């Protein structure tokens, strides 16, 4: 696992291009700090624009935001962005030469399959980001199954090679859920008895991850899930990124994840959808 230096670094944007409903932001990778290696698939960085971070209508964003390192290639880090709020909006506006603060690479990466092992990559929406760097890293080919809400978002599939696509509105690819593609893939895998059991690598919205988790639990397929949670720090300092673990305690997504083994969770929950308010 690559270690980050213990301070944020100022990086320059080299490009910001539309990819359907998303943007791909590229930045010049920082010089390696002593002990730092290349970012590993599943790791993320805490990002803030140097200029105009805050001060909008609600004076947010104030804290940095977490983004998967989607690719590390030719001296650049790539990020896939979806504009869902003030922080992502601001980052989507950056252009070549803009400066950003980055702390990272952070977090527990995907554990790569054992030599000769098979991987199945399953992504939903902007959660496809860490699967790109994972695909770049994997030795052999692996099926890539991606779900999107519509055609504009489905263009994001171009971030990976040879992806099978499903859309909620049926406008592109399979008409339905990506987990239906996964069920089919696992079925055929099972059918081909004798071949090694695959490991599922998944990232996407909580409902999708939960469906993947449940399906893999049902079929006894090992799965690694890249989680999301609201984060203030990204390095274990604030305890804000808690998600419930199977034992009833909480894990910190930033340091115990973002990639966790599916067996660590009883369920993937919607952040904000639980949290009973004490009377």
């Amino acid at each position, binding site marked *: 696992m690559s*270690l980050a230096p213990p*301070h944020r670094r100022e990086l320059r944007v080299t490009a910001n291009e539309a990819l359907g409903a998303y943007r791909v932001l590229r930045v010049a990778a920082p010089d390696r700090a002593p002990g730092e290696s290349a970012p590993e698939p599943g790791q993320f960085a805490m990002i803030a624009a140097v200029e105009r971070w805050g001060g909008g209508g609600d004076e947010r964003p104030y804290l940095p935001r977490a983004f998967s390192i989607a690719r590390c290639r030719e001296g650049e880090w790539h990020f896939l962005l979806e504009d869902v709020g003030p922080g992502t909006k601001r980052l989507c506006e950056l252009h070549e030469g803009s400066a950003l603060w980055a702390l990272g690479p952070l977090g527990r990466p995907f554990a790569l399959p054992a030599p000769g092992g098979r991987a199945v990559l399953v992504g939903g929406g902007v959660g496809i980001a860490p699967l790109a760097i994972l695909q770049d890293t994997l030795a052999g080919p692996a099926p890539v199954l991606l779900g999107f809400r519509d055609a504009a978002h489905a263009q994001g599939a171009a971030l990976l090679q040879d992806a099978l696509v499903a859309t909620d509105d049926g406008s592109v690819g399979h008409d339905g859920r990506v987990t239906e593609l996964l069920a089919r893939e696992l079925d055929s895998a099972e059918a081909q008895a004798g071949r090694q059991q695959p490991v599922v690598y998944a990232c996407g919205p909580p409902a999708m991850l939960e469906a993947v988790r449940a399906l893999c639990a049902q079929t006894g397929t090992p799965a690694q899930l890249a989680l999301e949670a609201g984060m203030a720090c990204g390095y274990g*300092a*604030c305890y804000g990124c808690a998600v419930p673990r199977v034992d009833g305690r909480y894990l910190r997504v930033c340091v115990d994840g973002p990639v966790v083994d599916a067996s660590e969770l009883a369920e993937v929950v919607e*952040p904000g959808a639980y*949290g009973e308010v*004490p009377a």
Partner: protein
Amino acid sequence: MSVSLAGLDLANPIINGSGTFDAIAAHASFGDALCEVFPFAAYVSKTITLQPRAGNPPPRLFETAAGLINSIGLPNKGLRGYLEHDLPQLERICATARPAGARTAGVPLITNVMGATAMELEQLVAACDQQDAIAAVELNVSCPNVSTGLDIGADPEQLREVVAAVRPATRKPLIVKLTPNTADVPACAIAAQDGGADAVSLINTLRAAALAPARAARSGERWLGGGTGGLSGPAIRTVALAQVAAVAERVAIPVIGIGGVQRASHARDLLDAGASVVAVGTESFRDPATGSRIAAELMCVAETQM
């Protein structure tokens, strides 16, 4: 710029606020580079309680104008878990940590503890007293009193009694972290001093709440899993300055100033207002090197002024 805080020697006046820097997790994320320029001149642990606590259900964070509300709920392994699992690691980290301005490695470890009763606190403090690795103890008195619902640190007389009851349990420096959510903070500081505290620290977070935003599920209901939380960051900076100045005017023991510090000028203001030491909290979330950056800048200014 070295300072002495109730018997502890600090290489510079910048430390961390309890619960805002997990040295073990930071060491895991950043490796030994963390210790080469350690952000703080002393390390304050997060709050430890007698029994383990899981913390509050999420969401635990809410970002607001120039501030953060947290509703973390003091997750910790409990006293025993802390002593067995965390303390040896913290001891190692603190021994190799070289803060800005220091020629040699080593920062004092301050352990922050909380209990609902004087007896609980006494047990915690007595246990810390046994540990050579612990240089000082900080009492977090923001725990609600079960009968009144108010923080045990909110009432001066009650606070004096609690501190006096705990004081005999250790000869290590005893710091009382005051609650800001009360009418007369200087009176509480004086009570802590009268009870035998060697220093006071303030401010802790201001009680705050938020509702789920319009587009979120459960819009209009409480956002934080804990119902309410504590506000920190730039939004509370001027409230902190007022409380620190008012307390420093009234007590003889040293004051640790905390609240909204983002850069050297903010630390300078707290020192000018009478604090001996300044702690950085939320700003470390934005940059883990905030503490050493501020310390270096303060030292640089101090040198150019000679």
